[in-house]
């Protein structure tokens, strides 16, 4: 478990970090290190240099005035324990609680999770369901990338190698909104074999105005279950509409299988976990 040799940089500003990345094409950003360092120790990753963001100013913190802004270096533990998020976006602290274990939560970061795009990560699905976007800073300034465009494939994002993800933006919920994340944990890794995030808004007429359902674990990247979403919109959020949505949760998705859980089983789990997520989202409407 000894990584290849690498250089180490610890910039104090984003601009400095971007500068180092530009000069070192094989460099990697280091956030919590809970995905990157194990990969380096297994020699699956061999960056020429690490650009440690831990001393960069302004990358942590949670703001909940209207839309929610979360600094990329905010840890799961901070998300998990945030009273403001529990009130504004309860799915976020709830999901943070289900990431790994307390040690992982203490060190792993939201920005790291989204930038890593592990196909079994939890927050990728939650970001899609919340219609989040990220701010990326590169040599030519910054840009906003919607979560949908961020995740390209397994472990692949649309971030350029010299871009630093600095913030996560989540639009304010409209109307009555319920949300929940349901996860079938892999017994070894603790990651999602199947995870379903559901965010459902109900209009004044009592029918579903907007439904965003995203799945992780089952596919090569976190993906929206659009068939399930469509099954809900315009319907009252009831046992019947939930069942109808659950029944089509895996429609149009290409599912993974491995020795622990086959694609067929994951397809089945998607239905059950979509139902469970929607039931809890409905209950949280109050």
């Amino acid at each position, binding site marked *: *478990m*000894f990584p*290849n040799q690498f250089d180490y940089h610890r910039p104090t500003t984003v601009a400095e970090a971007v500068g180092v990345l530009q000069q070192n094409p094989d460099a990697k950003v280091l956030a919590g290190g809970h995905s990157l360092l194990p990969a380096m120790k297994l*020699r699956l990753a061999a960056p020429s240099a690490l650009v440690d963001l831990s001393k960069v100013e302004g990358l942590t913190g949670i703001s909940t005035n209207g839309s929610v802004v979360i600094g990329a270096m905010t840890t799961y533990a901070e998300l998990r324990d945030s009273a403001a998020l529990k009130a504004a976006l309860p799915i976020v602290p709830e999901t943070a609680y289900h990431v790994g274990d307390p040690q992982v939560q203490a060190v792993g970061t939201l920005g790291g999770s989204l930038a890593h795009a592990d196909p079994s990560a939890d927050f990728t699905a939650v970001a899609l369901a919340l219609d989040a976007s990220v701010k990326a800073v590169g040599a030519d300034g910054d840009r906003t990338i919607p979560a949908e465009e961020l995740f390209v494939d397994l472990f692949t994002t649309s971030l350029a190698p010299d871009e630093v993800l600095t913030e996560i933006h989540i639009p304010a919920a409209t109307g009555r909104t319920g949300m929940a994340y349901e996860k079938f944990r892999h*017994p*070894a*890794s*603790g990651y999602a074999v199947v995870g379903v995030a559901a965010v459902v808004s109900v209009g004044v007429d009592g029918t579903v105005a907007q439904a965003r359902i995203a799945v992780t674990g089952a596919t090569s990247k976190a993906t929206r279950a659009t068939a399930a979403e469509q099954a809900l919109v315009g319907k009252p959020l009831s046992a019947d509409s939930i069942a109808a949505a659950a029944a089509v949760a895996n429609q149009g998705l290409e599912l993974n299988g491995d020795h622990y859980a086959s694609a067929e*089983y994951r397809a089945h789990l998607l239905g*059950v976990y979509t139902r469970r997520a929607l039931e809890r989202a409905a209950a949280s409407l109050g």
Partner: protein
Amino acid sequence: MVAAQEAPAKLVGQPLKRREDPRLITGAGNFLDDVKLTGLCHAAVVRSPYAHARIVGIDAEAARRMPGVVAVFTGEDLAEVNPLPCAWQAGNVQNNVNTPRLLALGEVHQVGDPVAVVVAESAYLATDAAAAVEVSYEELPVVVDARKATEPGAPQLHDNAPNNVVMNWTCGKEAAEVDAALAAAPVRVNQRVVNQRLIPTAMEPRGSIGRYDEGTGEYTLWATSQAPHVHRLLTAAFVLGVPEQKIRVIAPNVGGGFGSKIFLYFDMPLVLWLSKQTGRPVKFFEDRSENYLHTTHGRDHITDIEVGAEPDGRITALKVKTWANLGAYLSTIAPGIPTTLYGRMVAGCYKIPNIHVDVTGVYTNTAMVDAYRGAGRPEAAFVIERVCDLVAAETGLDPAEVRRRNFIQPEDFPYDSGIGMLPYDSGNYELALDRAMENVGYAALRQEQAARRANGSRKLLGVGLSSYVEVCGVAPSKWIGLAGEGWGAGLWESANVRVHLTGKTVVTTGSLPHGQGHETTFAQLVADELGVPYDDIQIEHSDTQGTPFGFGSYGSRSLTVGGTAIYKSVAKVREKAKELAAHLLEAAPEDIVFENGKAFVRGTPDASKTIQDLALAAHVAYDLPPGMEPTLEATTFYDPPNCTFPFGTHVCVVEVDRDTGEIDLLRYVAVDDVGNVINPLIVDGQVHGGIAQGLAQALYEGAVYDDSGELITGTMNDYAIPRARMVPTYELDRTVTPSPVNPMGAKGAGEAGTIASTPAVANAVIDALAHLGVRHLDMPLTPEKLWRAMAPKTG
């Protein structure tokens, strides 16, 4: 004179916190990787990426030229060094022995086989250089499944093992006799069960440091070892051909072993050889990936069961055929596990008149398999406890009733199970079953189960029982050591107890801990028996220099065998102290009473000599009785007359989600009988850990190889050892049936939890699905397997 004091409270039976824990859990322990030596070099091993291949060539030139590289060696350089020994072969049958060389020569037989070693100034440089060693291979066909390996046309691993067979071994009655009993039985069940391969996963992986001293010609080996004396013997006399007295083996604090650190591994002699070659101390420390790939695995049986019973549940005949996968080579005691420790225990707690066991040990292109916590007995308990439930399902009887009707009764002890095991020492199996059923509320659970089934609940309830008996304190030498069991050595233990001039007491023991709390348990025992304060007692262990020979810690034998050696040494010291007291008090030795550390003439406790007074007198030695030698110490080599046989019943209650197959562990009730208990806290801890390991086999763990011989559960990301949230709260209880075998009446507690829990959990899960026609499922019982088993049958 001080006024008569109250007798101090006895420590035996007290739940003392382990005195070693503050050091071990605050980073103050001294584990192998903490050992720092001047000039230390680091070894990295080049390993085969193929499960079976011929080595065509090795080019190490680039590696040799890399900065910081001290030396690179290949199998050719070690061609003169013996392969590792296999010390326990199956008794009375031919064993086709192939053991690993320190580095492979010519062929590799598993992924991870060491083919070359790099010694460098740092572990980083060594790892980089190992990656630069170029090895070319010619791939050969691979087999990973034990049954398939014995079939005609299967790839062959070793020339001297046709059809990859290590040995064929049987016990019990002749097959024909048991066949006849089966044919006559009104109730018949046949079932194939798989006891899957497990990876021991000690918290600390394995490693070794070798130092050769040119001045004295002496070698020192630091190793993560459960058996330093044996490792010295095997390294010296069997592998390197170095005089035994020239090797010293030290086991620093060892972070768990579960059996995997009993064995002699390639790196132990290798680091000594490397140190002599390079003139530098050399360390090898495997990483977790290497640990998973190449340190021994456990279990891996495929077993065909045929059972015959009466309609009233009495089992009349049991025929067992097992293919035991032993991996690419034989590890140190591999053949003994599926024979003596498995085959001879398949009767479990039951009187079964006709048993035939047939075991085939098999080579495959996988990691070596050897003893892993429970070692053979978990596999045996799994077979017989599944048998009880299968008979219950077939006869319609309650599983508890089947067990009850077959139990060996208290008056039957000592009991000979008829398949070559030593007689079970003592037991009261029904008492433990009754207690467990009462503690869990068995009748109410069965009612609730029936109600849920009737109302179509989506949460299926399952209740699983496991009544187990196991064999601990493995010995005596004249049984295990002779040809019938093939161990080929003794299995006694030793202890020296020495009261110093100051009254401080040092115990040196051949038993040693790797997490079990020996320093606490042994000190409690000595404090009570000798009457010296607990804090004055030091337990010394784990270093061949300064401790008497011991065979090591495994098989739940430290207390029953090693502890008895201590107990007997204390008794000898006490006798000598009494003799000395008689002399000083001018009385006859037979009139001296020794109580709570004081010797006095019967009836006059006020005029006493304390053990400290006597220790002083024995050391200054100017007033000793005629003929008495100075000092107060004694040594005992103890070879017990029999093994001990702990037992009990565990009950697990599970809920299975009808929609997904997900399992919830609702309750776990254990009633164990480990005989008399020295430290109940430590015993509870052993039971907790054991249950966690056993239930993990039932639900989570399983090493999986693909057809090319690659270990696809090669990291903790894929191989599921249980986390805290994956185990239930344990509800523990005990019955106490002292063992007549040793003076403490103890039976051993290190493995019981593991042995009992796997079948309890598996039986519970299968029971939850019984009304759907499910009779058996193979472990690990993953949700997907249950989901498939519950799916409506089509076609």
